[in-house]
């Protein structure tokens, strides 16, 4: 581990932008979103106030550059884009021709990735790369991307990563890990690619005082975390609670709008559509050309998971239960990892303010 003066962060950025699209936090419409940024776009000094169903950005007193917590976006917007073309097709009566898209662009470098999102990224890698068939576009984007992780100085008001065992400190899964201190950043390379970036920086040795500052910051962050989930036997709790009356109570509030799934960094569900413009249809439809497009979808959509004759989950109660059960129970069986990383996004960005931590507590109440 080495130390970098804060004003030298731009040198790290400079090195990155030559070879990568740097994806990081910036303010848009009063919200910290992720976008391609320059170092001065980082909303240093801003603080977010989050509640269930509410988000406000204010200028605060915090001295850090990364003074804010995570907004609605995560890496998933870039590695698994909301709308992406899978292939173009042209079919005639006798043949069908498929053209794969070019997913190679300038490689991505994600800056300021929190520990919770690194846990989510591990799940994403299992989903898109862990099976017999790999998702080629995800693979090409992921393979060339750099993860520049960040220890949280401040948790968001809806965060509970400590309960899920994912944060707030970054443990692994990074190319470079950053820890922000008062006057400097601590840097650690996790891969050869990360080390190469550090090699060109003028770094200082880390002192015992720096390490003390680091651990006191982690303590402070943990102390500020307001939410929690009791995780003992969480899958068991879900399986025992499938008929719990609380699901009906949630269904009364649930808007079924799908916002939670769109902001969740582990939600990966999507649907495919074949789009054909009128220009792509020859007379009598002898030749048809179009594109197959993948879009983020959600278990809250009634058309999602619809099969011949209907949907297995015809009620809001069943759909919410499916979502929460997938997060807290099924992913362990499916991928051996938690489907909830404790980032709190689903709580903040739910218009009805449904709070997964409170709903779990309610399930623990014996009827």
């Amino acid at each position, binding site marked *: 581990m080495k130390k970098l003066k804060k004003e030298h962060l731009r040198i790290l950025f400079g090195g990155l932008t030559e070879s990568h699209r740097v994806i990081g936090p910036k303010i*848009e*419409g*009063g*919200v910290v*979103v992720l*976008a391609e940024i320059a170092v001065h776009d980082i909303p240093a000094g801003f603080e977010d106030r989050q509640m269930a*169903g*509410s*988000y*406000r*950005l204010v200028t605060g007193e915090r001295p850090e550059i990364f003074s804010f917590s995570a907004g*609605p*976006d995560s890496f998933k*917007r870039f590695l698994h884009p*909301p*709308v992406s073309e899978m292939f173009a097709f042209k079919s005639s009566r006798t043949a069908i021709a498929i053209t794969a898209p070019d997913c190679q662009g300038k490689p991505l470098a994600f800056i300021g990735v929190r520990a919770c999102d690194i846990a989510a990224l591990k799940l994403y890698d299992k989903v898109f790369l862990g099976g017999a068939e790999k998702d080629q576009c995800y693979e090409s984007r992921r393979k060339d991307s750099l993860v520049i992780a960040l220890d949280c100085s401040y948790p968001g008001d809806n965060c509970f990563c400590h309960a899920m065992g994912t944060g707030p400190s970054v443990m692994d899964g990074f190319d470079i890990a950053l820890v922000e201190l008062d006057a400097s950043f601590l840097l650690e390379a996790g891969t050869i690619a990360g080390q190469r970036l550090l090699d060109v920086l003028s770094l200082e040795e880390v002192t015992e005082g720096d390490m003390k500052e680091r651990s006191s910051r982690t303590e402070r962050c943990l102390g500020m975390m307001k939410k929690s989930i009791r995780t003992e036997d969480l899958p068991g709790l879900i399986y025992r609670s499938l008929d719990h009356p609380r699901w*009906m109570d949630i*269904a*009364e*509030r*649930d*808007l*079924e*709008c*799908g*916002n939670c799934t*769109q*902001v969740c960094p582990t939600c990966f569900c999507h649907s495919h*559509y*074949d*789009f*054909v*413009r*009128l*220009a*792509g*249809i020859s*007379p*009598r*439809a002898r030749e*048809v050309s179009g594109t197959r497009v993948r*879009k*983020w*979808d*959600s278990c*809250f*959509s*009634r*058309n*999602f998971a619809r099969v011949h004759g209907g949907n297995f989950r*015809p*009620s*809001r*109660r069943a759909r919410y239960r499916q979502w929460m059960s997938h997060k807290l129970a099924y992913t362990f069986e499916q991928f051996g990892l938690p489907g909830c990383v404790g980032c709190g996004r689903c709580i*903040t*960005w739910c*218009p*009805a*303010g449904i709070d997964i931590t409170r709903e779990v507590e309610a399930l623990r109440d014996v009827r």
Partner: protein
Amino acid sequence: MKRPRIGVFKFTSCDGCQLSLLNLEDELLDFVGLFQVAYFREATDRPLRGHLDIALVEGSVSTERQRSHVVAVRERTRYLVTVGACATSGGLQALRNWADIDDYKNAVYPSPAIIETLPCSTPISDHVYVDYELWGCPVSSDELSETLGSFLLDKRPGIPGYSLCMECKRKGIPCLLIARSAPCLGPVTRAGCGVLCPSLERPCYGCFGPKEGANIDSLLNVFRKSGLSHHDCALLLDKMNTSAYRKARTREGPP
């Protein structure tokens, strides 16, 4: 196989949805190449003869004459598709369904006695069987094109029934409801407009009508917590899809 015969019909409406079809400028030549346009008053003065493979119907039923006309259209048509808020939910003119029609007539017209109208403006599906419904005020040109192409290819149109929020989040638009407490109807409104209003930092006001399974009461509870009165909330819903939002509020079904 001959080109399918298409008819475009207008009932009580502003013609804007028919213009959405004409606005498919890049595809109009393909459209007339693939379909035989048998009836389309906004585009040609050819009179209606014979049967139709597909009819696009704009507008609501609001006069006695329209009631029999829509049945006549249905009888000669294989596939009937309603286009837009008026045809699909009764339109803005359905606001009169919650008032006294004579009061309106007297307030608007110098000689109210000559106005022939029904007391309610109703969607096409109240009168005849509808094969497919396109929402929106006006209907989206892209969804029209997708529907026509899907008809030719005998496939289900790739048109969503989920909320506007889904499209909004995909586009990465900062949430007006969460970040500004704006009374945005996005969570209960059908996607399809391309997120026109939230892209311009204006809350959704429901052109595309209620999404499937909209939980309107829960959203109105949220608005009331941020200071809107019952009256303000009702006004939000009473626009071009007033009938559909009111129906969605009272619909019985599993929560």
